């Protein structure tokens, strides 16, 4: 049984002819603003967390003319390391190919390194190729990665908590030989007059060399394995102002430290310039 009379209904229907399209258009605009505001809020959040999405940093222990020692690179969860600027981690050193390796973060294991075909890297002196199972030789906190002539040390934000399980005996085929262990120099001698150039990781802050005296096959317990990794004093690191830990400590006032303005690390080129360079290459 109709509630409204025919006349009333006609009036209501006439009103609805204009009201409904108006509401529908308003709905579209509101959803648009909802999406835009959501994106803006996310951008703001990420702006306040510049290290967002990064699992750690790779610190250059030994680089080349184009790659200063003590330069650091934020490491994303997944990406490509290579010599061209389109890569996520650009290592312009002799022996590093255009796209040298893929890496990905695996919770509880570490940074898995997958060299591309024909490429080779060394993790703590152990040669790793595309045939090596990445989970067998993960890059963990404090581990040293050798790519071409570059030596890089990984510093994880999540530190050892999430990568303890990675310290387990290596498979037989991956055991470093006596020669390779002896030849591996994870932290080459620096010239005495080297002035620390990186603004945040001073020479004194960078952890010491990776001792190669304890072979992996003799590591029986986790504690032993942990001892093999050089102690990494978190408090000794001066956090970068643009990293997630930016407010952890005030900037050091000691005279020996080099200020940000004095840093010779070149500014990151604009994205358009990077594309041009890549195309040129």
């Amino acid at each position, binding site marked *: 049984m*109709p509630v409204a009379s025919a006349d009333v209904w006609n009036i209501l229907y006439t009103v*609805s002819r204009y009201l409904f399209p108006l509401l529908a*258009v308003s709905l579209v605009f509101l959803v648009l603003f909802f999406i835009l505001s959501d994106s803006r809020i996310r951008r703001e959040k990420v702006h306040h967390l510049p290290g967002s999405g990064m699992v750690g940093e790779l610190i250059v222990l030994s680089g080349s003319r184009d790659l200063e020692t003590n330069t650091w690179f934020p490491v994303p969860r997944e990406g490509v390391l290579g010599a061209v600027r389109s890569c996520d981690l650009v290592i312009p050193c002799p022996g590093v190919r255009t796209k040298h390796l893929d890496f990905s973060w695996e919770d509880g294991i570490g940074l898995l390194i997958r060299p591309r075909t024909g490429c080779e890297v060394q993790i703590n002196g152990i040669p790793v190729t595309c045939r090596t199972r990445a989970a067998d030789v993960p890059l963990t906190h404090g581990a040293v990665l050798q790519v071409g002539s570059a030596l890089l040390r990984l510093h994880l934000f999540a530190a050892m908590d999430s990568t303890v399980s990675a310290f387990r005996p290596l498979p037989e085929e991956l055991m470093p030989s006596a020669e390779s262990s002896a030849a591996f120099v994870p932290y080459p001698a620096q010239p005495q007059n080297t002035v620390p150039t990186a603004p945040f990781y001073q020479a004194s802050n960078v952890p010491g060399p990776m001792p190669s005296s304890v072979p992996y096959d003799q590591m029986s317990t986790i504690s032993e394995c942990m001892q093999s990794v050089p102690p990494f004093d978190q408090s000794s690191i001066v956090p970068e102002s643009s990293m997630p*830990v930016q407010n952890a400590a005030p900037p050091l006032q000691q005279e020996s430290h080099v200020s940000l303005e004095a840093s010779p690390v070149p500014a990151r080129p604009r994205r358009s310039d990077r594309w041009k360079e890549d195309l040129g290459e």
Partner: protein
Amino acid sequence: MRKNSSFHFRVCALLLIFFACVFLLPACRSGNPILYVLSAAVPGSMLLLLLLPNGLFPLDRPSLAVMLSLCGFSMMATVYLSVDETVSQGIRCAAGLFFLALGAVLVRSFRSSVPAAGLTGFCGLGLLSLPLIIPELTFSLSDGGMALVMLAISAFLALRLRLPALFAGTSGILLLLLQKDFGSAGVLAVSFAAVFWAASDSVLWSGISAVSAGGLFVLFLALPGYSVPQRAEISPVLSRLSSMPLLPPESVPEVSDVASSDLFFLLGEQYGVIFLLCSVLLLILLLIRGASLAQHTRKSFHASLSLSTVLLLGLRAFMFLAIAADLLPLPAPAFPFMTSSMPDLFSNFFLLGLLSGVSARNEADLEEDMHLAMLAR
């Protein structure tokens, strides 16, 4: 945060008012109690879903708002013509929420491993091959199969296993071509080639994927006896579109065959072309949202998955509109979320669930970073 909440509540309020009015108006005319129930139940359930706490079940609110609007539009298309059809559509949409949750849970629990990717690909190809195995099947599960195949391709590509990804993609296209489902095969081929190009990071492999997808089409078209199914009538939709008013007509138009009519065009006839434009714009917003989610992901798997979802939904809508404009002489697929076909509707819900899962993953990653930053202080 306050600004975003205000937009959230405004969308909720508008949906509540709009859909309450839409169902109350015909209820006042006919006095049908079912319409009164609908006028309370439809906006009420929309509000409940949009205000569901994030801790209980994380869903992407903007995408959800778009989906609910489109589902509401599909219900209001038949409200003057057949209340039973409206109720059926409402039940179908409610049942689709299960697939929405399934998609979201699947993304959150899916680990990119070879067995998981292989199993998903196998299930997807199985769904695509069902019409070949059981010719008596009256409905098509190709949309769901395509979603699963794209999920498997994304997982394989994230694992850098390009050959299995290539195999899954080409097998899916092959199965669809064998069924003479040219439209779906085209959608899958374009999505497959685009995702391969975006995720494989290799010109060679992108070329191989594009050539293999295109080669299958050329091969089938060159086969003697293979014919592309044509649309039965030429340009009936275009003539209907041109006769539709911009605003709702002065009197409620009568449609004889409601069950077989497309809900998208019924909406246009009942409420004017402006509602069709709003539907298309809402879908475009959903695609923009999906692309934005793909940009913010941390893992290549999630990025490929979001891209696949956006492509599958977008290409279907594009094909629907191209066929409506008489640009493609193929049988028309359904417009996303505005169809009475249950498999199509459920696959759309599943795809949106995948997007919601990726969004939840992004939010969780950001929360984790904020927690780390807080600990560092």
